[in-house]
């Protein structure tokens, strides 16, 4: 079973990422792109497993957010690690839309971003299969103090010091 770093633990990842050219839905928990999610909307109504959607950094999330908030999982794709748009999207999901489900980082993000990603509200990280997840998990603990407000810290340091 593929592995996932979630809530600081290494767990089995039961979710299947739907192929781009897939014509039908597999059984079980599936993760699909926003456009696939629209294409398959009818079939999804009767799907027995869980459903999650992957969104891209340039998504105008304001326009599509309502139905997504009911999902158990929203994944945000990083086309490359230097593309920081996902940090803002996760922040908006947690702070503005109070999304409580899983926010999963997928794509080109790197280990050294884990601490900042988690502060923005990501709680699950999908690395390539050859990654030693318990080793990379150390980077979640890079800092123990922080100045700003963020998804995981509702008071800035100046209200705590």
């Amino acid at each position, binding site marked *: 079973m593929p592995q996932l770093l979630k809530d600081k633990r290494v767990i089995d990842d039961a979710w299947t990422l739907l192929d781009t050219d897939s014509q039908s839905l597999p059984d079980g928990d599936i993760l699909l792109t926003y456009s696939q999610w629209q294409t398959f909307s009818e079939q999804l109504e009767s799907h027995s497993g869980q459903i999650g959607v992957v969104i891209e*950094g*340039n998504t105008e999330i304001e326009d599509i957010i309502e139905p997504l908030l009911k999902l158990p999982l929203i994944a945000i794709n990083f086309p490359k*690690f*230097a*593309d*920081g*748009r996902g*940090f*803002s*999207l996760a*922040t908006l999901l947690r*702070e*503005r839309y109070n999304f409580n489900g899983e926010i999963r980082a997928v794509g080109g993000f*790197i280990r*050294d*971003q884990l*601490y*900042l*990603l988690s*502060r*923005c509200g990501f709680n699950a990280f999908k690395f390539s299969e050859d990654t030693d997840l318990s080793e990379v998990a150390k980077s979640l603990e*890079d*800092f*123990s*103090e*922080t*100045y*700003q*407000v*963020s998804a995981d810290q*509702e*008071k*800035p*340091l*100046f*209200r705590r*010091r």
Partner: protein
Amino acid sequence: MYRYDNYDHKIVNERVEQFRDQTQRYLAGEIADEEFLPLRLQNGLYVQRLAPMLRIAVPYGMLSSAQVRKLAHISRVYDKGYVHFTTRQNIQLNWPALEEVPDILAELAEVEMHAIQTSGNCIRNTTTDQFAGVAKDEIEDPRPWCELIRQWSTLHPEFAFLPRKFKIAVCGSNEDRAAFLLHDIGLQLVKNDNGELGFEVFVGGGLGRTPIIGSSIRKFLPKQHLLSYLDAILRVYNRFGNRDNKYKARIKILVKAWTPEVFAQRVEKEWENIKDGPSTLTDSEFARVKSFFPLPEYKVIDGAGSAKKLAATADSNTAFSRWLDRNTELQKQSGYRSVTLSLKPAGVAPGDVTDKQLETIADLADRYSFGELRATHNQNVVLTDVNESDLFELWQQAKDSGLATPNIGTINDMICCPGGDYCSLANAKSIPVAEAIQRKFSDLDYVYDLGDLELNISGCMNACGHHHIGHIGILGVDKKGKEWYQIQLGGSANKNASLGKVLGPSLSRDQITDGIEKLLDVYVENRIADESFLNTYQRIGIEKFKERVYAPAT
């Protein structure tokens, strides 16, 4: 100045350990080059033509004598015994070894310094006026605000991977000495009709390939909302700034594409959602941060008497009198002056200082300016709060260390980028041009008579030498593999910021100093009374200058 508490220490120390681990993993081959690149950049480490370069943050230019001694020590132990003051009030080491950078950072942390976010596509060091707190035309001391911005921007989780680098400057006075209109965000401290303090917010200024002067997007932002408003601007930029083409990625391009009005609306809309949230600044936080910038314990000085004595000393010593005139500035506190130590003697790359000079600077700061000093964006060093009766002594000591060249604000106080000698992007060398100009105009009476004149040199259109905003700007261009120089006139970075206009076809290396001399001749012939070069240019226009420089030889 601001002092770290346990929280600040902890964050900076953890950063050092994080980078030590990253460097070890990189050296062990566990991190790929392209992944290590932004990690080292966010810790100030560049790799340039000859060696790595480490840029150390000097928050809004403030330094203590202890920090300067530490820098001298670091430059001796880990480098070649000199450092470079940059145009963004930072300090660079030119020859550190990658393996030793974590140790350098650990030494810096001991004196409450770091290199966090001094390069890379993130929020950089916030800059301000070198005369903050003492300037006669000050509305409010900008430093507490800069410190609040420093803390907010340090390791901000959402904005570490922006489309491009991001620079903020704060101006607290009527005259602008921070070039704040040429920053991604420029903040002008203002008071509204009720006497309340706030900011006028400008966005989208910048130099580089597409120089643009910032646009005002909010006339008055009450001070307590500073951080949430910055969050809103950065969030809009982070989400919608161009990420496909690095030459179109600065916020200025987004602001221009959307228009400042539309950009302002997007920011306001974002801000509505976070305004009045927990990031709203509190009175106790204002008070806490402000308390780090107290006025020093001034002696009660008979201002008139002190001025008279000083005038008498100056009368009997021309060299001192020149220095007094060019390199010192009156303060709002009478009997005290700010002294600019010139880092631009002829023959030295502008902004370079040796370890010995750093130690002298630290000693002078301890002796005469309450142990503190400031880096300026013109690449000099300022000692504030010097008792006028100490000036003569200070001058003698500074002179002995080569720090008292009386050229501040003159043609020889130029801003100059590293250029072709060090930089792989250069079209042309810039340091030898600076030196040739300084040697050509070495007659102090002449330089003195020319008065205020900013001459800026960049070796290519990336504009690290700010050529667009020099009264005279020189830009290195490449013509068929040969070094040529374009001249621009009329740039300025004050409140009425303007960008220079191209004079005409570029000049070769051996024509450049003669060309400059002709420009100066036109100025001297046409000026009225003590009109400056810039004002004369603005009055008579570019034509006369052009005719003279390109007149066929007779």
